[in-house]
């Protein structure tokens, strides 16, 4: 029984530690960290689009190498990327891609008669695409503090209400994780026997139910607090920051690289 609670608790702990690691990496002095957050968002998004639009494995692999170099220049260790992105994506997409080796129609592959060359190509294409896109987005997440990312999204014309909701949600996620954590821990500390499967289900649903009641109450408290500060439903954001020549150059370089990748890999 305790395995169930423990695995949920482990998930909570992992989310918190991932967030903490991201925060630490984001404060390091590296290449991506030195750029305006808008440039990071646009540049990495352009590269992700290039990964999607390029049709040649070699070009996508080259973009993966670029992502790895960007990681090193931004003081993100490749070990962390391997643990957090590469192995996870390989495990998930690898399993999905295996049957494609055999069932994709095409010419048989030499000695391995049951495999087809189109199957092999499509499996490698899928895996490199997923790995490269995930590496690029993880780099953005790792090198950009959440409040900078939101500010960049606001400056890129995402509606202020959406940005405010994203900011508040992020803040309360950690509060609610803490709350759920405490509920599970206190339940576990009062347990001496083994719970039946039905009882486990009831306990999980009850905890979720209590968390829901707490969340709605919390939202009412937050609303009252906002009202006390004069909130009337309109959201205002601070004025945008200025981009330097360094930022413009980086953005131009990223867009150039993405365009070249799409052009060569078409």
């Amino acid at each position, binding site marked *: 029984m305790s395995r169930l609670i423990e695995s949920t608790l482990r998930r909570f702990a992992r989310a918190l530690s991932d967030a903490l690691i991201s925060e630490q990496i984001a404060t390091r002095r590296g290449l991506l960290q030195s750029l305006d957050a808008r440039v990071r968002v646009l540049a990495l998004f352009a590269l992700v689009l290039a990964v999607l639009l390029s049709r040649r494995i070699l070009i996508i692999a080259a973009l993966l190498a670029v992502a790895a170099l960007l990681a090193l220049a931004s003081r993100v260790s490749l070990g962390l990327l391997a643990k957090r992105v590469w192995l996870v994506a390989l495990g998930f997409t690898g399993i999905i891609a295996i049957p494609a080796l055999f069932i994709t129609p095409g010419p048989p592959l030499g000695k391995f008669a049951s495999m087809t060359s189109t199957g092999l190509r499509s499996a490698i294409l899928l895996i490199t695409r997923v790995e490269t896109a995930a590496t690029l987005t993880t780099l953005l997440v790792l090198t950009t503090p959440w409040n900078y990312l939101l500010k960049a999204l606001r400056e890129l014309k995402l509606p202020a209400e959406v940005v405010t*909701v994203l900011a508040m949600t992020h803040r309360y996620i950690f509060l609610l994780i803490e709350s759920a954590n405490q509920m599970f821990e206190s339940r576990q500390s009062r347990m001496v026997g083994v719970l039946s499967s039905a009882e486990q289900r009831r306990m999980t649903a009850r905890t979720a139910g209590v968390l829901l009641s707490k*969340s709605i109450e919390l939202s009412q408290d937050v609303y009252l607090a906002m009202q006390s500060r004069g909130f009337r*439903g309109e959201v205002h954001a601070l004025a945008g920051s200025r981009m330097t020549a360094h930022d413009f150059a980086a953005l131009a370089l990223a867009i150039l690289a993405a365009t070249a990748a799409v052009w060569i890999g078409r």
Partner: protein
Amino acid sequence: MHIPDGYLSPSTCATLYALATAGWYAALRRIQRMLQARMIPLISVFAAFSFVVMMFNVPLPGGTTGHAVGVAVAAIVLGPSGAILAISIALAIQALFFGDGGITTLGANCFNMAIVGSLVAYATYRFIAAGADEKSRRRVWAAALAGYVAINASAFLAAVEFGIQPRLFHSASGTPLYAPYPLSVAIPAMMLGHLTIAGLAEAVISAGMISYLQHADIGLLRGRETFATLSPTAAPRAAQRLWVVVALLMVLTPLGILATGTAWGEWSASDFQQSDARAQIAAASHADPPAAAPSGLARLSALWTAPFPAYAPAFIHNPALGYLLSAVFGVGVLMVSYILLRRLTNRPRVRGELT
């Protein structure tokens, strides 16, 4: 079911972003009317709650565990519009902050899980729980089924999105460029896991939470009605339903390419000259076509050239993208015409009222 980047082609992602944006816009407008300033904290905290519930390990009969999305509970407590926004925000944070689910596929994930999931869950719950007492057992079953059906509807959409990729996007040598499996493989593979584990996890958490709320916090089950007291009349609701149908039809447009040949009676004048087209006409009509194109057809076909010949703009050689763009463009033209017509027909009456 969180689709990562790389599984869907850019044009599929763009289409699903467009559809999701329409859903977000409608939901935002509606919930703003209902909640006004309360909307921001309620949606924020509920999205945070959804995010945390997605992390719960749900024990299932048989000893396995699964993860739930919590879409049915969101739809029951907040109503469909609130659920669409809260689940979308939770999915966005998963993608943007925790790298779970792609950025280019965020529109697809939100469309499948948040928009279609919430609407399906809400409709199923309302249908089964109609007229049931607040504390009746039927509401618990309704919630379970709502969760189960919603997750499977979302999984089915994801499977269709995967399944159309190899047909529409492949290299000259036939190598699939994105998700490699056709519909005949993608649908059974996706549905197997969702009809069993994921659907069950969603059913268990939905039923358990509704049962808990019935005993401990019945007010939340009335919450939707409380929000609804400020809600607009049934007319926008009907319009919203129409939007869902339009959106579904738009997303299914590339399926049209899968059909071979030309639809019966939609032949062009040149089809009567080509032998293979003639054979198709003969087979479909069970009669030999005339030797030449009917003179009326030949004359009239030169009269009007569609802006998107054969459903694909000339500058786009990819038929799937052309199909989708044509659908979006077509719906856009209809919308503009409708708005213009309504303005024209409304204006005199408004003036009359003013004078």
